[in-house]
């Protein structure tokens, strides 16, 4: 469903992401881990078509993000770190706008919005202005916006940040349900909460200083009683010097 092929993003000498490749299949929920500034958001933004990679490419539901940009973007549901909401719109109007710009055929829009509202538990706030909603509800509206057009690929950037424990449970259950029903969704979610990974992810991809340092099923990683915290600490302890940085440093000292 998702195939990253050597994704790299450089800003001049600064290397944000270097040669990251991985595959995510249908029905999988992959936890995207890494310290702050490791390149998680940048990688996600490249997959969603928000910014192009400097090198490499990716396939989203078999569509190349360059060659078939529109088809690839249509196949992704993306929830950025700050949900992209218009405070002056009501929930229903927002979701109707999203299904329209996501090319859902006119006859299916109503049903798509109803389904997203129901799945994300937004029934009571449908007519409320988004600006007047609590943070938890806004997060759910953002998630509803990401799934409303029924994309096969979901990319969620810290979906549970700022929610209360009960809301966190609900969102996790929803994500799990999305991925497992029909096994047709591939989900990537980034998070800092390791317990969250243990709760919903089947696989872990660890990014450190822009490079992939770990990519394994959760069961395999934690086999033998190893804790995810230890693995995380171990993997991010050493410096990964990216080739670009190395040359930059060499030039700097010369």
């Amino acid at each position, binding site marked *: 469903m998702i195939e990253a092929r050597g994704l790299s993003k450089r800003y001049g000498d600064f290397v944000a992401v270097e040669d990251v490749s991985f595959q995510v299949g249908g029905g999988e929920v992959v936890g995207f881990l890494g310290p702050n500034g490791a390149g998680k958001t940048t990688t996600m933004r490249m997959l969603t*078509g*928000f910014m192009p990679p400097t090198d490499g490419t990716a396939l989203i539901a078999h569509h190349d993000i360059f060659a078939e940009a529109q088809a690839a973007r249509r196949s*992704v549901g993306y929830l950025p770190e700050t949900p992209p909401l218009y405070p002056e719109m009501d929930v229903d109007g927002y979701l109707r*706008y999203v299904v329209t*710009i*996501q*090319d859902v055929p006119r006859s299916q829009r109503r049903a798509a919005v109803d389904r997203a509202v129901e799945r994300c538990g937004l029934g009571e706030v449908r007519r409320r202005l988004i600006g007047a909603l609590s943070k938890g509800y806004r997060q759910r509206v953002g998630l509803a916006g990401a799934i409303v057009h029924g994309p096969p690929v979901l990319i969620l950037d810290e979906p549970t940040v700022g929610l209360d424990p009960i809301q966190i449970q609900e969102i996790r259950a929803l994500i799990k349900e999305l991925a497992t029903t029909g096994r047709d969704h591939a989900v990537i979610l980034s998070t800092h909460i390791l317990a969250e990974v243990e709760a919903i992810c089947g696989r872990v991809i660890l990014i450190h200083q822009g490079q992939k340092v770990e990519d394994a099923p959760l069961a395999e990683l934690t086999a033998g009683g190893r804790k995810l915290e230890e693995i995380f600490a171990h993997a991010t302890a050493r410096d990964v010097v990216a080739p670009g940085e190395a040359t930059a440093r060499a030039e700097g000292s010369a």
Partner: protein
Amino acid sequence: MKRIPTVAARELSSLFVSPVAYVVLTLYALLAGFFFLLGVVSFVETLRQAQAFQAFDFLQQMNLNDTLITPFFGSMSVVLIFVIPGITMGLFSSEKANGTDELLLTSPLTVWDIVLGKYLAAAAFVLILGALLGFFPAMLFRYGDPELAKTLAGLLGIVLTGLAYAAVGCFASSVTRSQIIAFILAFVILLLLLIMGAVAELGAMGNAGWLEGFLGYLSVGEHFENLAAGLVDTADLSYFFVVIAVSLLLSKAAVESVRWR
């Protein structure tokens, strides 16, 4: 392309949900009323004096179009450089501030869908302003007999000026995430476009070279005045078209640059 109206409709409705649209419409209507009343009062006064002095030649030349409507449109075209930036400042900058640019740029919308959709919303607002303004000279037809064609040409001038300003405002909004910066930037560019004519005239006092001609061509005032005087010429019409096209191309480039940075 079929998604442009969707983007435009959302933009327009959010303009009317926020107070900006109402504030702008109210202030514009108030100013129009003020300038119009001023025009009518001074017209009547001039008429009275001309009669008292029995200046028949002067009276013969005096008419509602040249003495009242054209100067009125002229004042209101200057007011537009304050008003239009207020409408366009949020077009792109608020998307960036809200993070909704991530929604738009990761959706199947093309950059042109976004830019033209937003411009269409601003253009619709300009038409509302034009309709509002048309109401004032329309009253004169009830009590006098101004020339219809000349009046309509002036109104066309105002609307085209507004459309060109909206495109410039669109560009200003596309390069920043701050609405205030977008407003100031648009205002400064429009002011420059407006005073370009005066600069050109100053330069031309010696001998008019190609630079003066070029600056004069860039100036909005010259083209607007021709229309306001009732001269509908393709050279002037194409000027507005060029300003709109260039501004929208620059806006598109600015929106796209987010993807390529």
